[in-house]
């Protein structure tokens, strides 16, 4: 038995070493110098020295497993596959000759009878293709991101400008009102009737102006994506506008409010405004911002850019007049100084039984496809990615409670993609949901990607 094993090992190792740099089976090139043919071998942990013929003799002599890099004898050993054409790899030595092909170059199954095919070349080219594709996506995604940042910036500017206009016109109106009051007061003696009529007319005019100002403001607030239109989707965020208040504000109902069209511009919004102003609740009053919004971000991430300063200002002065650029404020979140951001948009993902809805930085919800009420799967909590990539995971917490279980919560996993879409939603654990979400917003600068992609494929 023993001699048979020796012979087999000898034969096999001869066979392999003919095409590769001479070293014992399972040893990576980088450790070749520790295994010198014919010289006593010292375990890599230095614990003992053994004759060289005990290296790979299918008996574990070293505590650290280093004497058996090519056999399964040591419980803690590891085996190096060269995998020419693909990536080299270490596998636990328990996977040597277990009848399962682990190394694409088949070198782990040299004595098990398993019929392994060398798949390294295919894997290599497949991987290169995927890498290429990913690099492509990253590149395009990164461009898209830049573009989006630009758009968002100009949108912000535009809104600020409009805001300034509104503020100016409001100021004008107030000035006028003031002037009229003065006029009224100086004209002390007109007839009472005339005076009252006069006053009423003016007050109505002022109300109208005020209403118009409010309308403009609301338009901005509603127009989440700053495209100059208020759409059905925009309206749907305001469930208080539900005409029949039945708890379900449908798209049809929203469309009804918009006069039967999908979206309206500023002019057409006037008639819409008349329909909704009684019910409308500003996003500011509806969803109070967290007490200290910036608290959610790591300190070092508070950006130095101007835009961000603006954001901070707005955040911290919630009582700064009646005028808010709230839609703008909420729609863009600057993360880190490389301007990663997300839109305030709703992303919908259908599973075969439920519709899942993600409103970034707001909440995640689930609704049965065939009727039934919506369930809150969590409200925006915090970034929970690993230290080196904090913005790869979002956590939405404190959703509707589960019977005997926790409150529902959702983890959103962000990956770089050309589109901003929710790819899938699952519930790995009861009431703990997982959403996979792609967006250009997390795309890295392409050159930093896979620096090793084409290295190490050969030895």
């Amino acid at each position, binding site marked *: 038995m023993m001699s048979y094993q020796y012979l087999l090992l000898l034969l096999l190792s001869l066979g392999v070493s003919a095409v590769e740099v001479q070293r014992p089976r399972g040893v990576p090139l980088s450790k070749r110098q520790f295994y010198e043919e014919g010289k006593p071998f010292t375990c890599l942990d230095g614990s003992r020295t053994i004759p060289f013929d005990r290296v790979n003799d*299918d008996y574990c002599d070293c505590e650290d497993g280093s004497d058996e890099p090519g056999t399964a004898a040591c419980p803690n050993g590891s085996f190096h596959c060269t995998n020419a054409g693909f990536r080299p790899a270490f596998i636990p030595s328990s996977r040597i000759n*277990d*009848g399962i092909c682990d190394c694409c170059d088949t070198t782990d199954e040299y004595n098990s009878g398993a019929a392994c095919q060398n798949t390294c070349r295919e894997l290599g080219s497949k991987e290169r293709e995927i890498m290429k594709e990913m690099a492509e996506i990253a590149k395009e995604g990164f461009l898209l991101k830049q573009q989006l940042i630009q758009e968002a910036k100009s949108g912000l500017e535009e809104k600020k400008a409009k805001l300034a206009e509104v503020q100016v016109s409001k100021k004008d109106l107030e000035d006028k009102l003031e002037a009229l009051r003065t006029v009224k007061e100086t004209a002390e003696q007109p007839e009472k009737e005339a005076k009252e009529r006069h006053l009423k007319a003016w007050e109505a005019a002022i109300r109208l102006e005020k209403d118009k100002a409010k309308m403009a403001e609301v338009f901005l607030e509603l127009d989440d994506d700053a495209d100059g239109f208020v759409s059905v989707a925009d309206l749907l965020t305001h469930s208080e506008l539900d005409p029949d208040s039945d708890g379900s504000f449908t798209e049809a109902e929203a469309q009804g409010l918009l006069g039967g069209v999908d979206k309206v511009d500023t002019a057409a919004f006037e008639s819409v405004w008349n329909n909704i102003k009684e019910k409308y609740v500003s996003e500011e009053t509806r969803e109070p911002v967290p007490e200290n919004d910036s608290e959610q971000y790591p300190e070092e991430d508070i950006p130095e850019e101007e835009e961000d300063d603006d954001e901070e200002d707005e955040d911290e002065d919630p009582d700064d007049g009646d005028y808010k650029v709230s839609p703008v404020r909420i729609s863009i979140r600057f993360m880190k100084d490389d301007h990663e951001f997300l839109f305030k948009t709703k992303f919908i993902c259908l599973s075969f039984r439920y519709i899942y809805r993600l409103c970034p930085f707001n909440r995640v919800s689930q609704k049965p496809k065939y009727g039934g009420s919506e369930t809150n799967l969590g409200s925006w909590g915090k970034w929970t990615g690993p230290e080196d990539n904090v913005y790869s995971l979002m956590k939405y917490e404190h959703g509707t409670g589960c*019977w005997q279980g926790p409150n529902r919560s959702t983890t959103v996993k962000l990956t770089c993609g050309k589109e901003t879409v929710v790819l899938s939603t699952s519930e790995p654990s009861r009431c703990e949901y997982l959403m996979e979400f792609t967006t250009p917003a997390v795309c890295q600068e392409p050159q930093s990607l896979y620096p090793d992609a084409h290295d190490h494929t050969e030895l």
Partner: protein
Amino acid sequence: MASVLLLWLAVCLSGTWAVDKGNFKTCDQSAFCKRQRALKPGESPYRALLETMELTNTRLTLQLINDNNKVRLLLELYRLQGNITRVKINELKPLKPRYEVPDVLIREPPTEPLSLLSQDENGVVLSLGAESQRVIVSARPFRLDIMEGRDVLMSLNSRGLLAFEHLRMRSFEPLRSKEEEEKVEDGMWEESFKSHADSKPSGPSAVSLDFSLPGVEHVYGIPEHADTLRLKTTDNGDPYRLYNLDVFQYELYNPMALYGAVPVMLAHNAQRTTGIFWLNAAETWVDISSNTAGKTVFGKMLDYVQGSSETPQTDVRWISESGIIDVFIMLGPTPKDIFSQYASLTGTQSFPPLSALAYHQCRWNYNDQKDVQEVDAGFDEHDIPYDFIWLDIEHTDGKRYFTWDPHKFASPKEMLQGLVEKKRKMVAIVDPHIKVDSNYKIHNEIRSKGFYIKNKDGGDYEGWCWPGSAGYPDFTRADMRAWWASMFAYDQYEGSMENLYTWNDMNEPSVFNGPEVTMHKDAMHGAWEHRDVHNLYGFYVQMATAEGLIQRSGGVERPFVLTRAFFAGSQRYGAVWTGDNAAEWDHLKISIPMCLSLGLVGISFCGADVGGFFKSPSTELLVRWYQTGAYQPFFRAHAHLDTPRREPWLFGPENTALIREAVRQRYTLLPYWYQQFYQAHQTGEPIMRPLWVEYPQDPATFAIDDEFLIGRDLLVHPVTEEGARGVTAYLPGKDELWFDVHTFQKHNGAQNLYIPVTMSSIPVFQRGGSIIPRKLRVRRSSTCMEHDPYTLYVALNPQRTAEGELYIDDGHTFNYEKKEFILRKLSFTKNILSSVNMAPDAQFSTRSWIERIIILGASKPSKVTLKTAGGQESQVEFEFDASMSVLTLRKPGMNAGVDWSVTLQ
């Protein structure tokens, strides 16, 4: 998985977390139990009519008469092979036949001749063959005493509690003069519990008998109860109840019924072990009382000093709702005799595929194929071995068993093939409740064949379970079971493959809207009421399923079927787990006595949900549970749907490493476990066994249930206390040595040893005098380790000898029945370790070899010589650790299946 419908109980449960006892009957709420328990010990109204005695070569028959109502009974008495006495009592002329349990006994037990020793008008004395054992039948009042020499081993009806409610017509029953007979009590002809009515068409039919056990203070068995190993007296509470029930969030340390029932009790003292097997499948209650129960140790001492001590005695009393009295009295005298006596009646533990002894990963539910694939990959990524991944009810298409959810499990064969490629396997659940749905093939066939259990009005019985409205196939019918088995054929069970095995849950049966969450007792199984057969239902479900798995492979492959409900004989069909436990320390602790009790009555393949089913374990509890489960026969992690994920790598690298290590210890010991199962399959001895089974004369072991033995050579004292810094283990045997398997530290027997522990500690000891084979090359599944070499652990006793066995076969087929296996006897004596063939007529070859021999308690040799069959000799290198007296022989290299010897010089 399982458990009862959440909605039903949610209301009752809000706030507290425990069983809702109100859902289950107390003895007082069960009319027959109340009636029977009201009878107090005293003079029995039964009299033996000696003139009716007939004695043939195989049996004695005799009529008994109840002097109160003149109803006659027929007593049959048999002497069975292997020191068993069978006592059967039925009505002499019942109105209609009374139920006698079929299919549980593996055959009609062979008898041995009885001979008449003496007879007079007071009774007869019969010889039970050897050892001066006799049965004395006393006539007035009737009683039976089984004697050995001058000692009474057991007495029947000595307290006069024999009661046999004869079948009667409801309205024509003549009134008797005696009080207790004339009144028609409540609950005789109908009773109700909560909103459920039981129509009781046969009226009262209970049977009851008492047994006295002189000299006995310890009784065990009658699982399933969440209670201590040693049974308690029941004088101050309810009797132990045997009635298979789906108990939602069961409570510990009480006599309430659980999922399974084995009506077997063992009685033990330092001189003798006896057993009582009460073969009755109806609802049964067991009362236990003891004349020493209330006494303190001091009180007992005082008795002794004063010489006024009466002999300690335990009295038990069995009460069943219907059927007959059919009792097997197993006379031991040793614990192992009891196991072989019981095995001769009901068979032994089935021999499972080796992989079923490895680690099982379960959860209600792995959500879809992707989930399964990711969990599978997670084990490889974290280098933790596992053999089986399990799918609970959500894998089906709308809880229609034998189907797959078309979205989540669209291509089951692809998934199973993925596991095949890793040499791993899967278990999918198949419950016995069948969705009532005319588009469901299984339902349509059962309905059209008339295989459903019927309700009292003759229609198909319907109850609520997971699928909503469900029918329950009548598994008591052999033709139904044959049909069910055929449904496991690969062409019938779509998406199934060779590596898919089965789990039968909810087979008590669980009926969410039934009385006590089970079936109405007046449902009909052909001519029999559900009342008669209830405790057999789960037994039959597993029987039919196991048969299906055997048949699908053409009789080649061993099945693996897990069941929750069980009865006597269930050991023949697979594994049992302790049902829906909870992630609490007390539930971890109770897993030991629960499995020990099952092992004592033949069911060795037992485990508890690792981690606890309900609730979420702390990390410490989870780790400790893995460490305990790794040393119990059935090793499966499982979790409720509502709990957070708990795959082993989700608790940080440190805990992943602790769990990995526990699982790896299990895998290194698989050769030993497999050998234990082979032995259990041959002998019926428990695998996980209480200490007293091996040390029957040491009273210190009689009540121990926080540690246990695996076979006779490994002693395990798992850490089951939160925050433990140490455990105290009792190491039995005053002439024994015990070696810590991790440190090789040697300890003397007959001592309480304090063992300091850390989170990585699993206190395990190998008995000096034993040889245990292990495979140290732990791979990702047990199948991957098939050809790997062995390391032999030879632990020497004070006489410097040791012995053990090594069993090897293909690990998964029935070919071992055709003598395709290797069975070696390993022995160490006079400094020679040798392997000899114990089964010369068996043939098998293995590629496995002996890579290492570790001798504990050795002294340093100067030379070690290996001699193999051909007479060749070679020197074996060795290392000696003088501080621990451990001798390691390096790579002797011989094949594990051949003769060899190693000589230390």
